[in-house]
């Protein structure tokens, strides 16, 4: 075997492989396959697209805009407090500082030279 080079060995091997059995398809195999597929359901890879019922954007936007406008209007009027429970309005009144804060009193502690 040593006298053969790689190319000759390959050529010989290819010749040898040609001696291998050539399988033949059994008679009726394709017909049996066609019968088999008739009993198999075909699956679709694509999920059918069902569009959602179209909602007009203004049917949502309009009430929201109206509610916002009403909120702003009522909020700008003091009379709105009359519509709220007293528990809230009284609490808010207590929280309010009678002395207006100018920020000047606090400024001293932040003054340069008093940082220690």
């Amino acid at each position, binding site marked *: 075997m040593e006298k053969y080079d790689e190319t000759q060995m390959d050529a*010989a091997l290819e*010749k040898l492989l040609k*001696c*291998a059995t050539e*399988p033949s*398809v059994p008679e009726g195999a394709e017909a049996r*396959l066609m019968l*088999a597929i008739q009993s198999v359901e075909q699956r*679709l*890879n694509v999920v059918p697209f069902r569009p959602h019922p179209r909602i007009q954007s203004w049917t949502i936007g309009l009430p929201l805009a109206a509610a916002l406008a009403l909120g702003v209007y009522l909020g700008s009027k003091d009379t709105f407090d009359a519509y709220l429970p007293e528990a809230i309005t009284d609490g808010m009144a207590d929280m309010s500082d009678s002395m207006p804060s100018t920020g000047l009193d606090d400024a001293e502690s932040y003054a340069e030279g008093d940082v220690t």
Partner: protein
Amino acid sequence: MLLASARRDAAAFAELVSRYYKPVYRMVWRMMNGNAETEDVAQEAFVKLWQNPAQIREAKALKGWLMRVASNLAIDRLRRKPHADIDAIAEVADPRQVTGAELEEQAVTARVNQAIASLPERQKLAVTLVYFEGMSNISAASVMDISVDAIESLLTRGKRALRESLAEDWRGLLDELSSKAG
């Protein structure tokens, strides 16, 4: 045809079957060493195509896809039944009772079949696709989902293994081949 098959057109699918069944069957037969389940496996590959034709995006990829699916199914089947009947090849190959020179020829065929059957499955698939199905290294690599370098390596190892298995008969086989050619 692929599109028509996707629309459950049995006639179009039959056309695909007539075009690709033989190479798929041959490849599976070699992978399964002539096992009687070859037809089942080949059929299963086509049934998978019928069930879900949308998996193939390009018609030219169809043969490669079928080969890949069928070879994977064959390998799975072999792994489940590791002692697949390699010896059955001679029986399948040579159902006739013959004598004389034909017997000698059959002996060569049996030895070559046996050598192929003894290859590891990936080497066998590479050899089958390239040498028996005439696929290019690139197409075979695509079927096996590996690089071209990897398939070349498998082919080299496969050929080396075949030479080793046939080493005892090498000279005799070459003589027989040369006498046949002469």
